Structures are given as C-alpha cells and as structure tokens.
C-alpha cells in the first residue's frame, strides 16, 4: 500500500512528514541508548613549557557495545530481507496482489524503535531509488507501515495481547497482530486519502479494509513462517 504522490493533500503529506521525522528522531535516540554506552576514560593534559604541569580528568564518550554491533548488523540484514520480501507480490482474489509489509516482523525481532528505523530505511530506498511510493508521500507511508503497523500494532498491541496469554500461543498472537497491522495500516491509508478530499472517505475506507482483510492473511502466514524457518530470535524487552 505504498502511496504515490498526488493522492494526498499537501497539508496531510507535510503534516505526516513532520510526524515521521519526530518518531524517527525518537527512534534514533532510543536505539543510541540501546546499542551504545557511555564509557569513562582518562584524559591527560601535559604542559611542559614553563615548569611541569599535569592535569588529568575523567571524561565520557559513547561507544557501541559488541551486543550493539550485533543488533545493528541484524537490523541491516532484516531490512534487506524485508525489502526482498516486499518484492514478492502474492495473488489474492480477483486480479489483486499483496505483499508483506514486515512491520510486525521487524517489531517482534528488533523491538519497536529499531523496527521503525528498519521499515523506514526500506521505504526510503523504495521511494528514492525505485519510485515505489511517492517522495512527498514518504511521511504518510512511514506513518502507515512504520508507526502504525510496526510500533503501534507490532509492539504495543502485541505486548498487551501477549500479557493475557501463555507463551504457547506466542506464534498465534504474532500471526493475529500481523494480520491486524495490515488492516490498521490500510485503514490509516484510506483515512488519509479520504480526508485529502481525493475520493469519498466512506467508500474508500470500506474498499481498502475489505481488500486488506485478505492481504493480511498473507502477512500473518509469512510473518510466522519467516520467524520459524529462519529461526529468528524474538526481542525480549
């Protein structure tokens, strides 16, 4: 559901660019805390010109931990994988196709903020290199597939649901949230188009949700399949 340019009003496009930039800034600073730690080191100054003078102080600097390095590696590889999987359109009913979004996949494997950065990186490359999804609509696409599908549904809703159920049903919950993430993203997408005045809000919302109720099943199956087949470890925090 990559929105091209022209479907949204300027107000909505630029508003959502601002929202996306805000969330990405939070995501980046959260990731920085997760992958790097402040290390103290001793700074020494010597001034030997007139008489001997020596000063030393303790200073701090950010350093990426070895666990953090692994995390960034995993982000890069999962991003590549999600990009590749998004190229695979699968057929659904009457001449329509769908493809994985990967929001829930990214969120359960990497956590919400790293997941958001990964989905956004995929969308940025798709938009700038492949003209898949508009440039001005990039904010809206990051909102729908990153902030809604990955952070809101893939993390917060998943967390809420997982608290109510036993660990046995984890994969079922992941499948359900993956399905719902597509429906929720399509609802937001339709809302943006309708509120832009491009087409009637009611009819576009009904049509978009109807199609994505089916496409979401593919998202659910693929998300669970990928986690199982590739034995991806789920994010614990």
């Amino acid at each position: 559901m990559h929105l091209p340019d022209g479907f949204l009003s300027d107000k909505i496009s630029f508003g959502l660019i601002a929202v996306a930039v805000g969330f990405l800034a939070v995501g980046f600073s959260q990731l920085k805390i997760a992958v790097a730690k402040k290390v103290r080191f001793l700074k020494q100054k010597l001034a030997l010109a007139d008489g001997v003078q020596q000063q030393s102080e303790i200073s701090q600097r950010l350093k990426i931990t070895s666990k953090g390095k692994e995390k960034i590696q995993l982000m890069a590889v999962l991003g590549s994988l999600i990009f590749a999987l998004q190229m695979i359109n699968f057929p659904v009913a009457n001449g329509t196709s769908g493809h994985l979004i990967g929001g829930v996949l990214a969120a359960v494997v990497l956590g919400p903020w790293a997941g958001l950065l990964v989905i956004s990186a995929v969308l940025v490359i798709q938009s700038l290199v492949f003209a898949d999804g508009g440039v001005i609509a990039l904010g809206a696409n990051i909102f729908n597939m990153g902030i809604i599908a990955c952070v809101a549904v893939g993390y917060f809703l998943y967390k809420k649901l997982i608290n109510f159920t036993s660990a046995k049903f984890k994969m079922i919950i992941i499948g359900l949230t993956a399905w719902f993430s597509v429906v929720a993203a399509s609802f937001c997408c339709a809302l943006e188009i309708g509120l832009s005045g491009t087409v009637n809000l009611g009819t576009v919302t009904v049509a978009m949700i109807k199609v994505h109720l089916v496409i979401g099943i593919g998202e659910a199956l693929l998300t669970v399949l990928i986690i199982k087949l590739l034995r991806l470890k789920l994010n614990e925090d």
Partner: protein
Amino acid sequence: MKIKYLLIIALLIGGVFSLFASTSPDGLEKVAAEQNFAHQAVNFWQGLIPDYVFPGINNEILANFLTGFTGVLLVYLLLQIISLIINKLSQSDDSRERYQAKQ
C-alpha cells in the same frame, strides 16, 4: 540463523524469487482503479531504477537479478550507516568536551 546466511537469503529472494512475483495491482492500486482516482498519481521523481526494471539491460532475468541485488544491498548499507553516525556523534561529544575544557 547466522547473519550472513540471512543476507544471502535476502539476495536470493530479491534477485531470483522475485521473478515469480504476481504482477497484478496491489490492494491500494486496485481500489484506486476501481474508484477512479488512480490517474491522480503524479511522478515528481522517476527514481534511479523505475518500476524495478534495471535500465539498459535487455535480459529480463539479469535485469531482475540486478534490481533485487541493488535494492537489498542499498537497504543493508543505509542501515549500516547508523553505526557510523553513532560513532561520529560520540567523537563530536568528545571534541565538545575538549573545547569546554580549554575554556
């Protein structure tokens, strides 16, 4: 699974399996066509590899392979840049402190 295998799988899916992807319109494109607003889409920017067809290559299989390969690697590199940025930030923190210390 080991990280390098995951990257190889991504390259395989993007470069090879994507040949078998459905070419039907996706959910949004279908709705846009049915409700007559598809023509409102505008292309300000054609992209470097428009429509996932690698320019200047006649062989369909090779063009598809290059497209998938390029995309997968670009996403990989863009995300790897994060560690460069964090390292860079830590250096500027350090130089700021040095500046303050001088005063």
